[in-house]
């Protein structure tokens, strides 16, 4: 039977088993296809970046559809080995993969960290624990493609340490200092 609509495919990267299960469910409930891996290096392997080959070889492989196609990469920031930030850098410096939107997740709401990630090209920065409303917003990035840079930068979510019931909408609130 032919597929009338292809699901958006998200690659989720997180070393925590619990978090992988949750993000996978969040994404599936939002009608996405999910591949969850536990490290940055696994993510790069999945995407066809070997690290040893030259970037033009990788570009050819990706453009020939020899590697797995994803519409979005969502990664945890703090991971053993390669951090989410290092993964982000590798993705954004890869000619084959830099167009894929990348979202960072972190349990720590640190301004400098958020800024650094956005500067490196991340679409958004989600403060954990991730909620359904966060994931629903991600679909916009996937559907729009690259998205407008300024709007995204202004819209990143900052969360106070107490749960705020009205924090479903994006608001520019200064984060509490840890």
């Amino acid at each position: 039977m032919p597929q009338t609509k292809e699901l958006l495919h998200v690659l989720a990267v997180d070393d925590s088993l619990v978090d992988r299960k949750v993000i996978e469910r969040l994404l599936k409930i939002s009608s996405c296809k999910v591949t969850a891996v536990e490290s940055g290096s696994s993510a790069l392997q999945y995407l066809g970046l070997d690290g040893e080959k030259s970037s033009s070889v990788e570009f050819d492989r990706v453009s020939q559809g020899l590697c797995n196609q994803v519409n979005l990469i969502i990664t945890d920031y703090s991971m053993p080995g390669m951090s989410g930030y290092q993964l982000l850098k590798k993705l954004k410096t890869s000619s084959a993969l830099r167009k894929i939107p990348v979202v960072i997740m972190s349990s720590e709401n640190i301004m400098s960290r958020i800024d650094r990630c956005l500067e490196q090209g991340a679409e958004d920065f989600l403060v954990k624990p991730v909620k359904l409303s966060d994931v629903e917003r991600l679909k916009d990035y996937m559907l729009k493609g690259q998205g407008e840079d300024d709007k995204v930068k202004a819209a990143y979510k900052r969360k106070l340490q107490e749960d705020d019931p009205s924090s479903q909408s994006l608001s520019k609130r200064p984060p509490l200092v840890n």
Partner: protein
Amino acid sequence: MAAVIQLQRQLLDYTTSLYNEAYLDGQFTQLQQLQDESNPDFVVEVVSLFFEDSQRLLDDLTATLNQQVVDFKRVDAHVHQLKGSSSSIGAQRVQRACIVFRNYCEQQNTEGCLKCLQQVKNEYYLVKNKLETLFKLEQQLVAAGGSIPMQ
């Protein structure tokens, strides 16, 4: 029918008390909202993963802190993991205990860390107990022909 109503009441009261006493927070509610007919055991599955993961981390922490020379980086990494997973399932008291724990890690204070580890263990066993009771109540309700009320 009366049994179902009574069990529903019991479940509701118990759940409310867990939130009031901060054993659980809004993130647990989020998880419950992700459960449906296609994934009826989602919450139990995630919580089971949390139990396995936490036990492993607590065992490792105990071993690491009892070494002659304590590897505080390792301790901190494990506490960070435990803080993360407890936050992801809404186990607020465990999460808070982990935050305190990390401060002592930073100070490389073995004595303080050991005390914190005990505190985290206490909170963990408490919430584990509470969640197991909660799941049992849910099972009883379903067995009596009722359905778990949506939060």
